[in-house]
């Protein structure tokens, strides 16, 4: 079962186009939505939140297709935006006072616990908080109305490394009962990738893959070798290639094929997720657009 499914999503803006994107958020698991800035991650997330309407295609939430606006669905989703969306001039206390009544399942005690755990000063104004603090507040809200799906847009930006690690435990706690699902997006590979079960990779408005992280890592290889190996038949086999004065590094998406072709002629290594993203975005020449 899926917490959310996006099917055949198309959307065009003045300078950006999303073409036929399909992916799912599996129930009970953590999905990482990765890709460079401007790849369309936030737009996809806002489509799940019903803030943005796709030109074509549809979104399914908790098993039902969204035809008309389904406000009840938002009760079941905890949303952490990539930017602060709360009213700057209010204190945390007042902001909470405004938003809590909207949720039928608001858990005041849980929320209080998170405030303490995250060391959030209730009487401070939102504009006086650091980026990380604002994110923590947003997370506390998202976790305090028994949402079944937690969606976090670039949550690690602005968080210190210590809290990022704590976040891993916190999210793992959420997953213990197998009923909740998590989606996070990031443009840099982050600590969150460690616990991600599925990776959805988008680039320039297109889906590159939606697979388990283990599959992704197993199937990709990083080939390193001398430039004399790069003949015109070999070149197209790489998803991304970096050439230098002393050789090349290239990403291939099919491990067995790579081993068959290069055998012992080149070094075949296990790439990290970061390398997979880097080489795929880079392609076969030029610079990485960030």
């Amino acid at each position, binding site marked *: 079962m899926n917490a959310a499914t996006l099917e055949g999503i198309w959307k065009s803006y003045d300078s950006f186009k999303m073409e036929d994107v399909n992916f799912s958020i599996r129930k*009970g*698991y*953590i999905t990482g939505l990765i890709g460079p800035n401007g790849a369309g991650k936030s737009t996809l997330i806002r489509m799940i939140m019903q803030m943005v309407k796709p030109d074509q295609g549809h979104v399914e939430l908790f098993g039902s297709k969204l035809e008309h606006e389904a406000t009840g669905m938002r009760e079941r989703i905890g949303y952490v935006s990539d930017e602060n969306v709360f009213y700057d001039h209010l204190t945390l206390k007042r902001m909470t006072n405004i938003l809590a009544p909207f949720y039928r399942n608001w858990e005041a005690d849980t929320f209080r616990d998170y405030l303490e755990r995250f060391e959030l000063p209730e009487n401070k104004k939102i504009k006086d908080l650091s980026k990380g603090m604002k994110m923590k507040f947003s997370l506390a809200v998202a976790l305090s109305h028994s949402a079944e799906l937690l969606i976090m847009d670039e949550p690690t930006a602005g968080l210190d490394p210590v809290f990022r*690690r704590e976040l*891993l*435990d916190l999210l*793992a*706690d959420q*997953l*213990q009962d*197998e009923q909740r699902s998590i989606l996070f997006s990031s443009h840099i590979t982050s600590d969150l990738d*460690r*616990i*991600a*079960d*599925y990776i959805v990779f988008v680039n320039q408005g297109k889906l590159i893959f939606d697979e*388990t*992280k*283990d599959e992704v*890592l*197993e199937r990709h290889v990083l080939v390193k070798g001398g430039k004399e190996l790069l003949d015109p038949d070999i070149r197209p086999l790489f998803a991304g290639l970096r050439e230098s004065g002393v050789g090349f590094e290239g990403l291939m998406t099919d491990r067995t094929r790579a081993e068959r072709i290069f055998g012992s002629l080149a070094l075949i290594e*296990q790439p990290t997720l970061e390398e997979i993203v880097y080489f795929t975005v880079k392609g076969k020449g030029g610079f990485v657009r960030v």
Partner: protein
Amino acid sequence: MNILISNSSGEPIYAQIVAQIRQLIFSGELEPGASLPSIRQLAKDLQISVITTKRAYEELEREGLTESMVGRGSFVAGVNPEFLRERRLKALEQMLNEAMIEAKALGLSQQELTEYLTTLYEEENRE
């Protein structure tokens, strides 16, 4: 029970889990009937993905080392560790047999093959 995951070993994480739990069972530290942590708890403790952990548990079950019961998690199988060791020795014998056949095909003598194995051992130890 201790499980230590290395991020720099190059060995897949699930394989590291399988190897370490297997070792714990063989050494008797985990006795038959002992329960393993739940998949999601272990994933949390190791800060790794649930799917990776699940895969390790499935592998252990396939090897006959553990059993799982719906709603109750995984247990070390009730079989005698000696028996399991016996089974793995059998598998090893098979692999050695294959190596022997291949060595013959390549025209290696028994001594040459033994030396080859000794060299491999030495290299491994040096690492």
